[in-house]
């Protein structure tokens, strides 16, 4: 069970008191396969050792090219609805914010947004909703997926945790994958930052990827919101969670995202801020620990960081994103879920990848085969 693995990992984390010495880290970096302790040591390494970081980067580059080639997949997020009943202190959609007028896209609006995105060249879409089971019901989401399957070959959902039967409903509508972040793997903190709503149930969310896999979804993206709790601990436990999923469900395409907390109109800033050096080390450590796992970096990161992560582990990136509900077919000046940093258009991202000797890829699955 995942709970037991996380308890063991927690004990491992607590026992790792002093950062590993350079020789130890260097030998870990050159190993063929890293174990969980190796991964933890890389995460918890001292920030100022640029030599270790450079060695990690070279290795991550080799592994990424070997397993993924000179290819980065581009996807686009579409927010369907920002109605939410959860009180998450870090989120722009949360009920703890000053009330604002919420919106959800109607079917014709969804179709218009998707047609616009299709015209830009996208073939992989991430559909997002807030956590309001009434306003964005499973039926509403399944309808959106059905519309999406007219346009896109890969349809990934980032929505509230569902039951296994509900996951089956969206799968049958044409969904190919699920993105669900635990946010923090620290149970106590989880309880503190999720003031109210269905999301308050830690275990129900933790087990969601397995329910989705059992229902038949093939792509699973997990991660933690970096900066909420101890970043090293969250990185470590998220990595262990991924390792657990890969071992138990080898047929699943596993992917990680590690969003860093950005301002989102909410009161709370990061309690353990993750600067660029640490962020890059985390991404490299993930690549070394789980060579085959995808790593997705969203537009909440800067253009400069994203450009430099090409070839260092990143396998998917969003492009030309809006984090407001809709906003592609019609301009929108609404409250977003978070502020974006990399505001470049999809064509600019495509040019950047080509200049770096990479092939921008838009298609990752066969249309019509959910």
């Amino acid at each position, binding site marked *: 069970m995942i709970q037991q693995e996380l308890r063991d990992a927690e004990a491992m984390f607590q026992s790792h008191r002093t950062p590993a010495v350079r020789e130890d880290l260097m030998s870990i970096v050159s190993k063929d396969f890293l174990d969980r302790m190796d991964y933890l040591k890389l995460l918890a390494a001292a920030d100022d050792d640029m030599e270790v970081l450079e060695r990690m980067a070279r290795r991550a580059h080799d592994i990424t090219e070997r397993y993924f080639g000179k290819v980065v997949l581009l996807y686009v997020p579409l927010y369907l609805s920002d109605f939410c009943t959860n009180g998450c202190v870090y989120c722009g959609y949360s009920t703890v914010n000053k009330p604002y007028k919420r919106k959800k896209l109607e079917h014709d609006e969804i179709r218009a947004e998707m047609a616009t995105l299709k015209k830009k060249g996208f073939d992989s879409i991430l559909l997002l909703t807030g956590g309001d089971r009434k306003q964005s019901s499973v039926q509403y989401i399944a309808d959106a997926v059905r519309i999406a399957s007219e346009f896109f070959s890969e349809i990934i959902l980032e929505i509230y945790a569902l039951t296994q039967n509900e996951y089956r409903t969206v799968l049958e509508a044409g969904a190919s994958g699920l993105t669900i972040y635990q946010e923090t793997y620290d149970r106590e903190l989880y309880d503190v930052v999720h003031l109210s709503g269905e999301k308050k149930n830690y275990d129900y969310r933790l087990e969601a990827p397995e329910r989705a896999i059992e229902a038949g979804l093939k792509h699973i993206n997990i991660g933690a919101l970096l900066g909420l709790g101890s970043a090293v601990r969250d990185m470590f436990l998220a990595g262990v969670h991924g390792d657990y999923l890969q071992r138990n469900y080898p047929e699943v395409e596993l992917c990680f995202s590690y969003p860093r907390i950005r301002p989102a109109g909410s009161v709370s800033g990061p309690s353990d801020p993750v600067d660029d050096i640490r962020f890059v080390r985390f991404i490299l450590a993930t690549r070394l620990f789980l060579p085959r796992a995808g790593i997705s970096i969203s537009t909440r990161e800067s253009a400069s960081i994203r450009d430099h992560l090409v070839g260092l582990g990143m396998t998917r990136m969003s492009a030309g994103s809006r984090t407001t509900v809709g906003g592609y077919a019609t301009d929108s000046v609404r409250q977003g879920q978070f502020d974006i940093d990399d505001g470049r258009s999809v064509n600019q991202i*495509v040019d950047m990848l080509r200049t770096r000797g990479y092939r921008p890829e838009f298609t990752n699955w066969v249309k019509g085969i959910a």
Partner: protein
Amino acid sequence: MTYKIGGKDLKSRFFIGSGKLPSYAIIPEMVEKAGVEVITVAVRRINPEAKQENIMDYIPGHCVVMVNTSGARNAEEAVRIARIGRELTGSDWIKIEVETDAKYLLPDNEETLKATGILVAEGFRVFPYISPDLVMAKKLEKAGAAAVMPLAAPIGTNKGITCAALLRPIINEVGIPVIVDAGIGRPSHAAEAMELGADAVLANTAIATASDPVAMAVAMAKAVEAGRMAFEMGLLAEKEFADASSPLTGFLRRTE
């Protein structure tokens, strides 16, 4: 000299994969300079409505497109992907790739055999990608496969011919062509596979991630040719001790 495979007469014994290439635009030059005649294309990467570059626009007309079912998790998915692939490309050459292991991307031989049976019955030329297992290779031959494609090492590892002891029996015992696929990291690996007696070699990662993919494809093609040439003339066995060129016991055989 031509050889027959999948109902076609081909000259080149070097097949290339396309999945990891830095750009599809280099395909025509690669095909021309390395004399490539077979290119694999993943159905999961073909987007008929693509606004951006579509791989099918870059494959020269004389090349055979070998469609692969990469991403399929079972026989049923492989079959559905194969049908869509034939529709999209017009090619009936199908490389069955069923991977139920996303970590090492090792093929599921059992599901692959199931899919082979179904697709052969539907008239496809079926090229199953398998872990090197002689018994499975013989079953695939019986099921009507056009060739078998055993791996030399896990995909993308560049480790070379790590299991010659398992490949050799397949090459010796099955009557259909054997294409060594996956694990080929260097021209010397490709030559080694051909020296073993493989009918062809497929590479992707080693080319795609080279600093000059076209030049690497040419180097690989030459190695494939060299290895084949050596195999056809019969390789000399390796010896553990020096061998004087004039026999030391020659005086005993004097016949005057």
